[in-house]
């Protein structure tokens, strides 16, 4: 379980949100919210990419600040619009993530095939379309043995086939005990069972169906 306490974030004098207590449990948590409500910022904080005030802790033991390495082994993240060096190839990035996250290419290969990525992973990222880049970023989020996967707007720029494949992979991975936090403007494909829906609005979080304390 991923838990945040007294989490706040501001950019200069603009407060983005102040979240007293949220628990992200098993299954899929869907975070909704209008543009600029802070959904991506929240995910970047949970991924350890940007600074914040408050506490983020996994399973009551692994604190994001105090145990940065252990936390990052357990939590993976795919950004909405990632930026990688244009001269890296897809394989360069995948190998880097697999090595860092103790993952194996055997486990990831079926996902790469499902996403039809085999044909372009040898090419430089600079030559990728938005959809190809998105698939790469999503594939890297499944590298290793994460207990939590954070996906920021995972369905944008993907074609219909890739959306269905991603939904299958989320469901399949969820069955192995990995939980997901997803932000999405679009409706999430019905094949994915949603355990909890949260709405981030005016710097506060409200629950639509379940576990927000």
């Amino acid at each position: 379980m991923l838990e945040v306490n007294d989490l706040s974030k501001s950019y200069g004098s603009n407060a983005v949100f102040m979240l007293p207590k949220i628990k992200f449990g098993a299954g899929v948590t869907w975070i909704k919210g209008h543009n600029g409500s802070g959904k991506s910022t929240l995910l970047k904080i949970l991924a350890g990419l940007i600074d914040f005030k408050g506490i983020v802790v996994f399973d009551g033991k692994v604190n994001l600040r105090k145990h940065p390495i252990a936390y990052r082994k357990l939590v993976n993240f795919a950004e909405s619009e990632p930026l990688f060096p244009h001269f890296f190839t897809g394989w360069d990035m995948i190998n880097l993530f697999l090595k860092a996250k103790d993952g194996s290419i055997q486990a990831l290969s079926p996902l790469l095939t499902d996403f039809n990525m085999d044909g372009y992973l040898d090419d430089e990222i600079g030559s990728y379309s938005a959809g190809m880049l998105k698939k790469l970023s999503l594939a890297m989020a499944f590298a290793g043995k994460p207990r939590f996967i954070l996906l920021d707007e995972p369905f944008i720029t993907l074609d219909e086939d890739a959306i269905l494949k991603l939904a299958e992979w989320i469901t399949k991975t969820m069955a192995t005990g990995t939980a997901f936090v997803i932000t999405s403007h679009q409706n999430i494909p019905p094949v994915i069972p949603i355990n909890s829906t949260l709405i981030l609005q005016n710097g506060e979080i409200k629950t639509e169906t379940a576990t927000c304390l």
Partner: protein
Amino acid sequence: MSLAKYLIKSFGKEFYKINAGFLVMSFILIFGYGLFIKTAGHIPVGQERTIYLILLLSFVQSPLITFMAGSLWLVYTLKCWSYVWKTSLLEEYTFCRYSTNALPLSKQFTAWCIFQSYLFIPLIIYWLLATIYGLTVDRFFIPLLTCLYLIILIFLSAWIYLYRFNFSKFERENRFHVITLLRKLPKAPFNAFFFEILLKQKISFFMTKVFSFSAFFVLQTSISAIDEPIRLIALIALTIVTIHCILTYQEYRFSQTYLYFIQQLPYSRLKTYIQLVCTYFILLLPEYMALYIMLPLSRLLLFLLVSLSGLLFIRSMLYFNSVTVRLFLKWVFIWFSMALLLILFDLTWTLILINLIFSFTCFYWLFYKRSSLIIK
């Protein structure tokens, strides 16, 4: 909006943004050369203005310097052409590709001339200053000749752009790319910046190295007889660090823009810091190799420690939020002055220690403290 205004707004401003590092570095290196290296750091009282004018004077008086400046202008012009040629292929300029050629050629030509003059602003300012100075010392021929040269370059550029937007095909050329050669090479965060240099920062890197080696030879020959060897080595290392400040700034920005994902990987901060040390060691490797041939090992070790720790120190200053190039250069200058004092008082080892402790502490405490992923 007139075509000239549109071209300046769409192509021109972006050109300056992309080449800001190159332009600032050229400015610093040229004036740094005039002020510090040519004078070996000694500027007699009351002669500052004379020293400031050395470069301008050389430009209007010495045909050799005029020829060198002219060659540099030509390189700059080629850079402008290459920029417009490549940028015109981008998606966002599709509208420009298919609309500019609706105007009569004469109007397009005038607009491109204005556009090229906008890109030439740094050259025009330099030419203007030199010409004013030339007029005061009755030198007319070279300013007149270089004015003609500038006009020819502007007309030629306008003609090239005119050809590009009216008569050439907008297709990606199927030519040899360096990137194809690099495809198979192993890439990791610590060597990523060198690929960036090879692909995008060649000129900055080349100029930095030219000035770095020039500084080394000038300092070595001019003050070796009057100073102690250890002090001299430390002083050379300081100068070389200062010359590398723009490359350091570019490396930092590159890391913050494209390698931020490292923060989400389970790497220890110590490991990441060691990778950074490796990056800067490789950056200074040409200097180390040259010195290995010329100096005993003990002095090379001292040079290595002063230069490497110095670069890590100035880089760590960038971790503080909102550091602009201007502010960074001021801080580098302050660091240079303080470090120079320590060297003059034979406290070189203290300097190394301060540099390393400061850089590692900043890195360790501020690595995860990035407030946003947006680069200003």
